[in-house]
Structure formats: C-alpha cells, structure tokens
C-alpha cells in the first residue's frame, strides 16, 4: 500500500517536470513552435468545422469556378461550392482519421508486441510471422490491399489504415520489451511476486514509451497522407463527405482552368503533415530517440 503511494507521487512529480521541459522545448525549438501553432489552427478548424465555415460546404451556387476573391477567399469549385468552407470541414475527417487510426494501431500493436516479447515461445513465433508478412510491404500498399478486400467507406478506411500500421508498433514494442526484460528492476519485480500483466503495465510500458511516442506522432502524418491518397483515388470515404483528398479528386479535371482547386486543399494537407513532422522531429530530439527507419 505505502509502496504504491510513493510510486504514484514520484511519477506525478516527474510528469510535472516533463511538461515544464516540453513547454520549454516548444519555445526553444522553432520547428516545434511553428508546428504547434499551425497544427492548433487546423485542430480548431476541425473542431469548430461548419460553425466557422463561411458557407455550407455542400451548398451549390451559380458562382461557379470563381477565382479567389473577398467573398470566396479560396475561390469556388465547378458546382459553385465555396472552397474555403470545404477545406475547413475537410480538416475534420483528415485529422479524425489520422488520430483514430494511430490510436487503434498503437493499442493493438502494443498488445501484440508486448505479448510477443514478454511471453516468447509459440506466441512470439506466430505474432512475428504475421508482422514479418506485413513488414514486406509499404503501409500504403497494405491499406490498398485491405480496401480491395473490405471495400471503401470511412470505417473501412480507418480499419485498413490502422491494420497497415500495426506492424510498426508491434515491432518496436517487442524490441523494447526484449531489451528491458533482462533489466534488473524487472527481475526484481518478478522476484517480489508482481504479476506479469502488472510488470508489463507498470514497468515495461513506461520505459518503452519514448520511441513509441515518436513513432505515433510521425504515424499520424502518414495516416493523414494515406487517407488523403485513398480518398483521392476513390478508395476512401464516400463522395458526399468533403475530405482534402476528395476535394482534390473533384477539382482535378478543372485544374487547367481553375488552379486554386488543385492548390489549396493540397496546401492544407501539406501544412498539417509538415507541422506534425516538425513536432515529431522536435520530440525525437527531446526524447533522444535514434531515427528509426520506419519511413512509410
């Protein structure tokens, strides 16, 4: 009993110090600062969505393919829909897919990786064979294969992208567990009679956190790119939901006459992904994680 009190108060202090350090980092590192500011803007756009959109994102009008102007800052599309409103609402799906897929992949990957690394034996063998299978292909191709199997639509896209990312998390978690398993504090905990699950939760996970946080951050940017690309190819969400990839797909036939249809939604994707990459890079420096080769 007294043990756990000491435990939790110590971790609370270190957590508070962690936040202070993180705040310092954001101010010191220009990349992190720019990334945080830009991402916050997009997050606000995503959360408020149609509340701040100047027009109805699906509302058609006779002002078709108008170049950017005061009344339509990013212009209008071939059906007279306001591009700015569509881009703002599009942030919702993009960020939702980006974050939710990584959370699913993170949880599932961690469970698989920790089980494989900690239990070893045939569990490890089966899990690793599956992970090796996925590892042979880029994540995006896995996602395309899965959409080929499951079909299109928002929930299928989320399932496809999360499954595609599982191997990255499982692999890194397993590696961490294997290296930590031999540490003395884990051996000590086991000698005292702490259960396996508690050892994994209290001792192994916190010590494996740094590289996993970095991977998760960077994965959000790849997930956003993946969703945009799938939607662009017509394999993503259905056509009634404006997402950045879909807006670009809609505008593609008109780009020779209406450049703004090809520029602005892509710019939104790039700025979001760039800001997440900036944050990921700053986190990598901050948490002192060696650059991994998980590039897809």
């Amino acid at each position, binding site marked *: 009993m007294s043990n756990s009190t000491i435990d939790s108060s110590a971790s609370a202090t270190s957590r508070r110090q962690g936040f202070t350090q993180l705040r310092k980092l954001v101010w010191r590192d220009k990349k992190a600062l720019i990334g945080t500011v830009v991402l916050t803007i997009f997050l606000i756009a995503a959360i408020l969505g149609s509340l701040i959109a100047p027009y109805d994102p699906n509302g058609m009008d006779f002002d078709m393919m108008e170049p950017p102007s005061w009344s339509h800052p990013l212009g209008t599309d071939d059906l007279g829909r306001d591009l700015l409103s569509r881009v703002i609402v599009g942030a919702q799906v993009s960020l939702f897919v980006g974050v939710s897929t990584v959370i699913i992949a993170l949880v599932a990957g961690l469970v698989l990786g920790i089980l494989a690394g900690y239990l070893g034996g045939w569990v490890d063998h089966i899990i690793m064979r599956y992970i090796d299978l996925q590892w042979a292909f880029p994540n995006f191709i896995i996602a395309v294969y899965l959409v080929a*199997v499951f079909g299109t639509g928002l929930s299928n896209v989320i399932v496809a992208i999360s499954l595609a990312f599982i191997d990255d998390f499982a692999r890194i978690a397993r590696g961490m567990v294997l290296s930590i398993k031999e540490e003395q504090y884990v051996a000590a905990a086991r000698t005292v009679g702490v259960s396996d699950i508690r050892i994994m939760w209290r001792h192994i996970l916190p010590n494996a956190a740094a590289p996993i946080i970095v991977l998760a951050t960077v994965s959000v940017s790849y997930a956003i790119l993946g969703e945009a690309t799938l939607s662009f190819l017509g394999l993503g969400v259905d056509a009634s939901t404006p997402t950045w*990839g879909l807006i670009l797909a809609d505008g593609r036939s008109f780009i020779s006459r209406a450049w703004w249809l090809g520029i602005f939604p892509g710019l939104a994707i790039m700025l979001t992904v760039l800001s997440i990459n900036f944050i990921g890079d700053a986190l990598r420096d901050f948490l002192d994680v060696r650059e991994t080769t998980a590039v897809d």
Partner: protein
Amino acid sequence: MLRYLSRRLLGAIFVMWVVAMLVFFMMRIVPGDPFEAMLFDSGDPAAAEELRKKFGLDQPAHIQYLIWQWNTLHGEFGFSIYGSHQPVSRLIAEALPRTLSLAGLSFFLAVLIAVPAGIIAATRRNTGADYTVTVFAFIGLSMPEFWVAILLIIFFAAHLHWLPAIGYVPLSEGFWPWFSHLILPAVAVGTGFSAIMARMIRSSMIEVLKTDYMRLARSKGLSQQALTMYHALPNALIPVVTVMGISFALLMAGAVVVENVFAIKGLGRLLIQGILNRDYPLVQGTILVVSAIFVFSNLLVDLLYTIIDPRIRYDK
C-alpha cells in the same frame, strides 16, 4: 551463401503465396459481387448468373481457389471481368514496363538530387546550405505524391505548356517522347523518396565524419574532396542502402498512385481500377505481381549489403 539464398527465395515465395491466398478468400468473404454492380442498370439476374458461370464464380470458393492456383502456376491469371474481358496476364504484361520505367526514372532522379544534397548538408553543417536542404526535405516528406503531380501538371503542362499532362509513350518510340511523358510523373514519385534519402545521407555522413579514421585521413593532409568522396561517402552509404531498399518499395507505392493522376496504364492503375470495379481476377493478378516486386526487391537489398559492406556475410 547458396543455402542462405535458397532459404530466402523460399521465404519470398511463401510470403507471396500467403498474400495471394488471403486476398483471394477475403475478397470472397466480404459481401458484394462484381456482376451486381456491373448489371445495375439492366438488372437482369439471369444475365448475371450466366456471367458468374462464365467466370467460374458460381463454384464454391475453395474450388475457385484451386482452379485459380493451378492456372496461376501455369502463368494464366484468368480474364478481366470488366470491359472487353482481356486476359489479365496480357494486361499485366503491358502495364509492367510502364510502372518499372516510372519507378526506375524516379529512382535515378531522386538519387541524383539526394546524394549531393545530403553531402553538402553534412559537410557544411549548420550553414545556410544545410538549413535549406533540411527545410526542403521536410517539405518534400510532407507532400502527398498525387498533389505534387497536380502541382506539376498545373505549372508545366497547363500553364507553361512545356510537357504533356497525361499518357505514356514507350521508349521504343524514341527517347524524348518517352522522357517528356515520364518526367513529371517521375518527379512526383521521387520527391518524397529524395527527401528521405537526403536526410539519411546527411545524418549518416555526420556520424562518419566524427570517426577516428576520418580524423586520421584529415591529419594526413588529404584534400576535402578526397576525404568526402573516398573515405566518408562509401561508409556513409551503408545505412543508406537499407533506406533505399525500403524506399524503393515506397517508390513503387508512389507509382501506383501517380499513374492514376497521369493516366499511365501501369500496374497501379490496373490495381485501383480493378478494386473499384471489384474485378476479382484483375485484382488477384495485380496484387500477386506487385507483391512479387516488393518481396524480391527486399531480397535484392539484403544481397546488396554483402557487396557494399564486405563485413556482412550470410554464410551461417
């Protein structure tokens, strides 16, 4: 070495077999039928049934699988359900050179840009040049390939009229027609790859420049050029090959996407259209070939190591 090679080859074939089987059965488990979508307008159930029979889709899934596997082993992938029912093997044979020349050209362009950029950034660390390379690499990494493709079309095709916006011309019809159609897609595919590689070369060079043997070479009074080209670069390239291997796979993935923007009838376009039409034989055939490219390029990279780094041996 021979034992290692045969084991890896068997492993590669096994991976392809598992992927093909998974895709085959999962496509059939998921509800939805290609002919329902196809005959949506006419809505004649008898016609759909006839087509199902013609393509063998009225059989139970495991029988279909055995037939498919038997045919595949004989190099026959069946017929496309959609359009003019062309043999899938012919469609793939036509598509393969397009995709490979696209991936090849973008690989070449990306290396051409990334290697000097990485070296300059590493040797002039923390200068304006380094900063520029880093910023461009970040931007390159953050742009989806299809958007780069759109930007290139807007600028070079629609605005300047310098290059064609769509299509593909085989190399046999002359270098310039081939190159002019392929350069924009190649840049679109290669941008992200080039960014990843420039960053890798930079950080790997920086590590190498810190080593003792570099200090020794420098103290011998070698010129900066000799130091970089003969001592630092070969050693810095070893980790880069890993990334090149993974990234070649990325190039292929990028090609799959970019082909669809430039209307190049490569493997990617076949795959995506097959998926959209639920054209089972086409999707199965394309996935098999695409998977083979990935699996064997992974193998090739592992073998490349032994050439680049003689310390690595696979004898055991």
